[in-house]
């Protein structure tokens, strides 16, 4: 490969990072605006059942202490400046600072999502190539029908069926959690065993679009002149398929991976909840059930940032792999 266009890539990344700032500002502002418009009352949430017994004066003082009497714009600004200093507030449901919750759980979510993505990409490539090899064949139809059915199937339903099949019926894999309940320490083999089912389900939920894109890409590449030329030269079918069609068909698809972060987060929210995986997606659901606003606000912002980074990654890869695209134009 030629020397990478580092300077151009850095300029694109820099421009995008500048664009991230207003997006994140608007998103956090929107989060505070929605909270302000909702019937949610931070004072009652903070005081809990004690709010019923206490007099109006105490509640008023609490309101003042929490800063709820100020308009939501000033609360937003206060939160934002504190967040830049690393203070994201206190999570009521986890009973620890929000930053600490994220710090402890992010690694498990990343592990799960990363593993699932690798599995999905590998399986999707194999299935897509098999389907594209003979379009309209029984195999192609089987793969296509399977992917459409999987796309239509709710992730949480697949997860439950997987628990039933692999954990309850055959008992080969644990049904949830990070380690066995009896185990005190987090060991590699424990985590690896508990990772299999959530990874498999999350990968299956990401599989359909990838398989279909690979099938389309490789199928189109098979109909193009370079492939016809290679076949005319007597190049073996295997080389044609894997060396020519897969290479030109797969690269554009790989660049799309970054833009699928929202779907991955959606899948993780459901999969982590079913499998009690101690990641940030499961924490989001817990925070929502307990209306833990500081944690929800931070996690929404974090997810948005992840989506933006994914999009940037997709653009960078696209520019790298497709020589016709100039970074300047993006």
């Amino acid at each position, binding site marked *: 490969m030629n020397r990478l266009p580092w300077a151009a890539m850095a300029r694109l990344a820099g421009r995008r990072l500048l664009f991230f700032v207003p997006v994140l500002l608007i998103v956090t502002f929107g989060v505070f605006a929605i909270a302000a418009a909702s019937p949610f009352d931070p004072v009652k949430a903070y005081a809990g059942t004690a709010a019923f017994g206490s007099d109006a004066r105490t509640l008023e003082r609490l309101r003042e202490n929490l800063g709820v009497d100020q308009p939501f714009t000033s609360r937003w600004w206060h939160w934002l400046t504190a967040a830049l200093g690393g203070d994201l507030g206190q999570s009521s449901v986890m009973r620890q600072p929000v930053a600490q919750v994220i710090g402890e759980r992010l690694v498990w979510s990343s592990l799960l999502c990363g593993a699932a993505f690798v599995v999905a990409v590998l399986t999707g490539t194999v299935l897509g190539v098999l389907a594209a090899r003979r379009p309209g064949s029984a195999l192609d139809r089987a793969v296509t029908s399977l992917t459409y059915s999987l796309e239509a199937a*709710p992730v949480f339903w697949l997860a439950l069926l997987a628990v039933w099949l692999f954990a309850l019926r055959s008992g080969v894999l644990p049904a949830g959690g990070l380690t066995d309940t009896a185990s005190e320490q987090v060991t590699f083999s424990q985590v690896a065993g508990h990772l299999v089912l959530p990874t498999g389900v999350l990968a299956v939920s990401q599989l359909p679009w990838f398989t279909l894109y690979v099938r389309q890409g490789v199928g189109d590449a098979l109909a193009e002149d370079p492939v016809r030329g290679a076949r005319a030269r007597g190049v073996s079918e295997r080389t044609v398929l894997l060396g020519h069609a897969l290479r030109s068909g797969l690269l554009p698809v790989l660049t799309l991976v970054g833009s699928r972060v929202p779907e991955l987060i959606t899948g993780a929210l459901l999969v982590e909840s079913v499998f009690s995986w101690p990641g940030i997606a499961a924490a989001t659901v817990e925070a929502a059930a307990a209306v833990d606003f500081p944690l929800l606000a931070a996690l929404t912002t974090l997810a948005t940032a992840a989506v933006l980074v994914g999009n940037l990654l997709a653009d960078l890869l696209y520019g790298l792999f497709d020589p016709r695209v100039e970074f300047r134009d993006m």
Partner: protein
Amino acid sequence: MTCESAAEPAWRSYGVRRRSTTAVRLRVSAALVAVTVLAVLLVPPLVRLDQQTVDLGSKLLPPGWAHPFGTDDLGRDLLLRCVYGLRISLLVGVAAALVATVIGTAVGATAGALGGWVDQGVMRVVDTIASVPHLLLGIFIVAMFRPGVWPVVVSVALTHWLSTARIVRAEVLSLRSRPYIDAAVSGGASRWRVAVRHLLPAVLPRAALAAVLMVPHAMWHESALSFLGLGLPTHMASLGNLVQGGRSSLLAGQWWPTLFPGLFIIVPTLAVAGLAGAWRERIDPRRRSELML
């Protein structure tokens, strides 16, 4: 395998066969949608069975003649509950899709028709909202407004209008340069009249297609929220609530209270996607018909 058999003939026979498979797919999809709609509309008033009838003597019966889908942990017939659940999920899905389509069409048409900085600003806002994952935004809205029917509808609608807005805007932009619009403008039609009388009718088929496709999405979204315990209240047995309700039975080894509600989400989704694919082929024959989800 020789190269001849692999390359051209495969593509060619694919083209010939495609027409018949498209027809079959269309018929199957239409039949499934019809069955779904009929079941949802007719079963509740016609069948004199109460889906809430608790019969602890026949709890957790596996699928059989008396109960084709089996019974749940309170002895309620699962087939009946699935039909009622589909009714609720479909209602929420249609309501949310309607709201989302109205918002999306209004925003997209305004942005496309006005153009300039309004268009730029509106589309930046659309991009910004789109960068928050849908389900997460939905969860946030529902968490703040407490679970209930309207928060769920609003949460689904507010996260789904973006794609409609983009589609409608793109369509309006491509229509703006057509001669008949120029004719209307030079004939003295006001901006408003051009938008309502000339642009909107031309955009509607596409917006309607987007709306139909959105219904399964909205159902999916609702069932995910309900499954997480953040959606409809449990007494409204939507499909998501049914899957969630079957969870405890599943952990005890009974698979049917979980399996069937899920199938009731998949089958209508595929049927609607098949119908929408055929419809798109009709309004836009150049694009290859693929199932759209």
